[in-house]
């Protein structure tokens, strides 16, 4: 009984805390870990190693702290992932008005500034890239062996960590019987646990964050070889790029057509329902459901090294290609709105104990496109709720620095061109002599021989 009271009190307290801080980016404070490693924030006691010092502690939620405690070494990986994400975001947006600037880490403030409070495209990208960054970095750390708690095969093991001797023995049995190789699986699931902690999926904004976090991870998902005979797949008719849904029983699998389409099949249109892709009876379609940035490598090791026995594995892509893929998704992001069915949700707020959305159901929601003529967003699409603010002028309320003083390209007609970048305010042109390294020759590993060149450079800066 005591326990129950304690539970109720704790839950109520949590609710008070949540109500007291109406910040929308409540699940995203962990981004600050990226800057926690920097000298002004790192405690002098542990140089080089991120421990649970005060600065890190402050950025993490209780569950995240527990996860960090249970998985030694994971915090360094998360910090690395967050740093990679920030660097990648700044690379992808270096020629745009919003250049993914981060503020110096200050307690209680968001790393990317107040832009995160708005549910716009840029926020969607930030969520996706940070989620992908954690997945990538944790997978890498598993492969290196610097996180010892990586799972053997996530699908067969319960979420709760087993510390009993029997479970340990079972673990060794699994390894000796069927092996372990699931680096990316752990990265994926850890990212879900860690990154999605604050997002309970109740409000629309939380749904948006969850969706974008998932979309970021989906870039790194393992292509699904386990196509069940009853799975419904998203497919793409080659040629006219129409996306539709098919079910698998009436298809013949073909090997890869090209790099873009790792799995393809002949589809008999006569078997599909109302969603007919073309007028011809048989079409070759590409299964985009199984598409991702992961690359497959194989090795033959049969009799005399022949391909009677072939083993394949997935290669972790470079984070740059992950960033590229997400930037494409950013350009094609869909605006969504509240589905009608979710409008009744606030009625539950009157309950004494807040209704927690079950873990697995958290990801089961369908967002409705803002424009009813558009297709509903897929799992890999980025979604946003409101249009982006203008990034031209300094806006302290939204934490936008403006494009004053940004460099631009006077010949480009794109977003990096001076017309668009400077928002029509005009720009200043200066000719400068720059001293830089040039004609470098590298020698493995560490020797770089460069000449010093003095070049004339024309620099345009926005007024």
């Amino acid at each position, binding site marked *: 009984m005591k326990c129950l009271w304690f539970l109720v009190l704790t839950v109520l307290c949590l609710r008070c805390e949540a109500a007291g801080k109406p910040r929308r980016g409540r699940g995203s404070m962990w981004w600050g870990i990226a800057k926690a490693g920097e000298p002004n924030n790192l405690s002098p006691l542990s140089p080089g190693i991120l421990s649970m010092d005060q600065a890190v502690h402050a950025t993490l939620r209780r569950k995240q702290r527990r996860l960090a405690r249970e998985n030694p070494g994971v915090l360094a990986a998360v910090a690395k992932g967050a740093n990679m994400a920030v660097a990648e975001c700044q690379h992808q947006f270096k020629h745009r008005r919003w250049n993914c600037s981060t503020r110096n880490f200050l307690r209680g403030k968001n790393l990317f500034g107040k832009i995160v409070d708005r549910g716009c495209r840029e926020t969607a990208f930030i969520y996706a890239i940070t989620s992908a960054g954690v997945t990538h970095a944790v997978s890498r750390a598993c492969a290196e062996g610097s996180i010892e708690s990586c799972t053997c095969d996530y699908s067969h093991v319960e979420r709760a960590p087993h510390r009993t001797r029997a479970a340990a023995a079972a673990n060794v049995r699994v390894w000796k019987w069927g092996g*372990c190789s699931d680096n990316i699986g752990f990265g994926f699931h850890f990212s879900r646990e860690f990154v999605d902690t604050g997002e309970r999926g109740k409000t629309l904004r939380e749904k948006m964050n969850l969706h974008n976090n998932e979309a970021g991870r989906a870039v790194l998902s393992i292509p699904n070889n386990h196509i069940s005979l009853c799975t419904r797949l998203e497919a793409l008719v080659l040629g006219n790029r129409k996306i539709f849904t098919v079910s698998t029983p009436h298809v013949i699998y073909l090997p890869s057509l090209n790099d873009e389409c790792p799995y393809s099949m002949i589809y008999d249109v006569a078997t599909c329902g109302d969603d007919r892709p073309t007028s011809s009876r048989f079409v070759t379609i590409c299964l985009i459901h199984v598409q991702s940035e992961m690359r497959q490598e194989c090795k033959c090791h049969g009799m005399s090294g022949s391909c009677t026995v072939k083993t394949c594995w997935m290669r972790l892509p470079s984070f740059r290609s992950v960033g590229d893929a997400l930037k494409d998704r950013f350009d094609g992001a869909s605006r969504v709105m509240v589905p009608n069915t979710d409008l009744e949700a606030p009625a539950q707020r009157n309950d004494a104990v807040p209704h927690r959305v079950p873990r697995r159901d958290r990801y089961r929601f369908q967002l409705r496109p803002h424009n009813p003529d558009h297709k509903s967003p897929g799992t890999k699409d980025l979604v946003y709720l409101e249009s982006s603010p203008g990034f031209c002028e300094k806006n302290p309320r939204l934490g936008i620095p403006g494009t004053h003083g940004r460099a631009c390209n006077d010949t480009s007609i794109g977003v990096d061109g001076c017309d668009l970048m400077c928002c029509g305010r005009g720009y200043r042109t200066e000719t400068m002599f720059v001293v830089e390294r040039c004609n470098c020759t590298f020698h493995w590993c560490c020797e770089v021989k460069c000449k010093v060149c003095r070049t004339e450079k024309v620099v345009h800066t926005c007024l």
Partner: protein
Amino acid sequence: MTGTIIENLSGRKLAVLVTFLLLCQITCFLIGGLIAPTPANTQNILGTVCKDANKVKNDTSKWYYNRGKGSCEIIDLDDMHHDLSETDIVFAFQMPVPRQNQILDFSRWQQNLIGVLQMDIRYHSQMEVRPRSEVTIDARLAYRNKGDPEDSWQLYTQSIEKRHLDCEIEIKTEKYLYNCSAIPLFELGSLFHDFYLLNVRLPVDTPEMNSNIGHIQDMWLTVINQNGGFTKVWVSLKTAFFPCIIAILAWFWRRIYILERKPVLLERMLLSLGIALCVLNMPLEYFTLHFDLPFMLLLGDIRQGIFYAMLFSFWLVFAGEHMLIQNNPTQSSLKQYWKHLSAVAIGCISLFIFDMCERGVQLRNPFYSIWVTDIGTNLALTFIILAGISTGVYFLFLCYMIWQVFINISHKRQSLPTMCSVRRLHYEGIIYRFKFLMLATLLCAALTVIGFILGQVAEGQWKWDENIELEYTSAFFTGVYGMWNIYIFALLILYAPSHKHWPVAENTSDTQNLSEEIEFSRISGERTSSEISSLTSFIRKTTID
């Protein structure tokens, strides 16, 4: 006179036998699909960049690793340390990697270990990787066993190897990675120790060495080992099949021994095929659990090679023995088939030489590969092409002979109506069963090929149902293995000499038939010693007629 069992077996008994064998076949397939895991497991290991603090660089007693007592100082290649030289950098791969807070170790059931190296090379406009540039790798492999101190690594083998680096890039922009092909690094025929450690250095001893390999960002090692569960299922199958084939062989040999005549060629071929299967089925893998036997990979290849050579020779002789009409009817011997069999021999010998050059040398140096040098590649390709050509020639011979047999049979069939009804039925039965066996062979071969192609197209698991997961690759291996075992069991049983005699007494009603019967018996009786089946005798008789 005596025939073989297949001729005297009633249709019902044959059906029962075939059903039983089919059930065995399905069991083999399901054992692989439902019990066994995938045949091999891969682990992707990211190399830890360690700082070689040792003054003496060629010291093989100093090892670098990232876990456990005495782990190395880790450096980050991203921020260029200008105070480092290439001799200070060691990529360390400690295998297996830990899982679920446990230090895993290799089990001897996991049989073998293959290492493939992959380099993540970052694009630099001033440091492009040239196509087919050569990378020199100083690779050292160490081992440790359970119970040893964490820093007592023992040298297993070391070698300085050259490999070709095939890299390409689509978007030539800074910080993009090259798409480099995997480099096969080593193959260990035995996984005897518990832990292994690979230290990789990229030496620059001459100015050209390792000069065009670009900016290496990461090095990945993918290790492939056979799964312990798969080995267990596989060895169990072998253990089950081995006594069976021994028993059947003994029974077959006794049957021939009591015949009071020398065994004919086909019987001797069957016997050698059985012995080859015995060699293949011998569960020698049990020895690897107690002894370090690095030659197991090579031995496995040789055992399989002997079996295939015998099977191919048998098919030739089998087809030939049912066609000998024009040839002189003396005791047929292997010499008559030398032209056909030389194709098999050339193919096998060239594959054997290739295997000795690759896996044979790997016994001395696990890092060796014949494919890295141009001469080696040409040599290997020569042997493989030679083997391919002789396989092609062999199949041409075989198809020609089978076609001839069928022509013969259909030709002789026309003379069937002139015979008495009982004998005609009997001969029709024999032809039917001969064709039946032909069909079985074709079916087995076709199933093997189809299964292989299906496995290549959709590798991995197949799900028939939400609850039943079928491990297709393993199912294919156990299925095919079981199929050829059962096929040879069936051959040995059905082609063993029969005790039964011709039912002469049953058809005395027709005198004409009787006279033909006697005549036939006389003619065939002349060559009892040289004939295995009455089908051949039938064909020869009608030729004489």
